[in-house]
Every structure is written in structure tokens, then in C-alpha cells.
């Protein structure tokens, strides 16, 4: 069941409740991803602790790491969408072939 199709047929107040849940989940996931990205780029780019400030090499590395991760994440997102759609289509074909459930 897809959230968009779950929305259909719901009363107005419960559509609002689901939208709020979606929004909260997106905010939570953004914060999780932000923290995860900080952890990753810190781990990959910062090795020395003779100073308390990042040097320009470390700073540039963090920026590249961040940009690269976002590009990676976007490309996985495209593939994920394709794979999900394929799976959805196959699922519907199977259900149609079986006469479908209520």
C-alpha cells in the first residue's frame, strides 16, 4: 500500500492526520540524514587533532564529501523510484491475474 493511495477514501480529518505524520517523518529523516552525513564526512576527512580548527584541506574535503554524498543519494533515489514502480506494476499484474482481492 502506497501512502498516496492510502490517502484516497479517507475522511478529511484523517487525511490531515496522515499528512502531518508524513511531514513529521520527513523532518525526522532530514535530521537523521544530516547527522549521518556529518558523521560520515567527519570520519572520512578529519584525521589529525593537533589543532582545534579544520585546515583548508579538511574543509574542502568535507565540502566534496557532502556534495558527493548528495549526488549519490539522488541517483539512488532515481533507481529506487524505478524499482518501486516496477514492483508495483508486477504486483498489480499478479493481482489482476488472480482476480484481485477486495
Amino acid at each position, binding site marked *: 500500500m502506497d501512502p498516496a493511495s492510502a490517502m484516497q477514501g*479517507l475522511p478529511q480529518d484523517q487525511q490531515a492526520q496522515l499528512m502531518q505524520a508524513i511531514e513529521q517523518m520527513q523532518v525526522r529523516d532530514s535530521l537523521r540524514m544530516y547527522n549521518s552525513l556529518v558523521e560520515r564526512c567527519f570520519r572520512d576527512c578529519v584525521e589529525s587533532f593537533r589543532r582545534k580548527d579544520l585546515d583548508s584541506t579538511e574543509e574542502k574535503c568535507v*565540502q566534496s*564529501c557532502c556534495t*558527493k554524498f548528495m549526488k*549519490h543519494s539522488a*541517483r*539512488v533515489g532515481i*533507481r529506487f523510484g524505478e*524499482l518501486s514502480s516496477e514492483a508495483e506494476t508486477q504486483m498489480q499484474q499478479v493481482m489482476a491475474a488472480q482476480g484481485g482481492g477486495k
Partner: protein
Amino acid sequence: MSQQGGQDPAVAIDMAKQEMEYRVALFNAMVTSCYEKCIDKRYKDGELSVGENSCIDRCSSKYWQVTGIVGQMLGAQGGMQ
């Protein structure tokens, strides 16, 4: 409330939430796993190479297939309960 279609709307909302949480977790796991398998961590710049791009595409596809196999294995064992 009336239960048309044989499904309580509150249950439908819970199931929709859980489906979303699962999809988000699956996506995040795919991102992380394929990052480990495909990405060069020297970060000379923020660009993905041709090789990295190809790897990401194939990794995503294989990761998706693994979810299917694991799903079948768990289903065959009578679920996790």
C-alpha cells in the same frame, strides 16, 4: 465510525505510516550500503565518476533483489513473529 471497504480508517493510517517508515528505512539502507560498495572516499572533488555512477545503478538493482530474497526466506519460515 462506519467501516466501508472492510478496513478501519485508523488501522489504514497506521499501516500507511508503517509502510512509509519501512520504505524510508529501506531507501536509507540502500544509500548507505551502496555508498560503502561504490564510492571512492578520497574526495578530490564532489563529482561522481562514470564508474561510480554505473556501480550505483547496479548496486541499487542488486540490493533490491536481496530484499526480495530475504523477504521470501522470512515468509517461508513463517514470518518473524
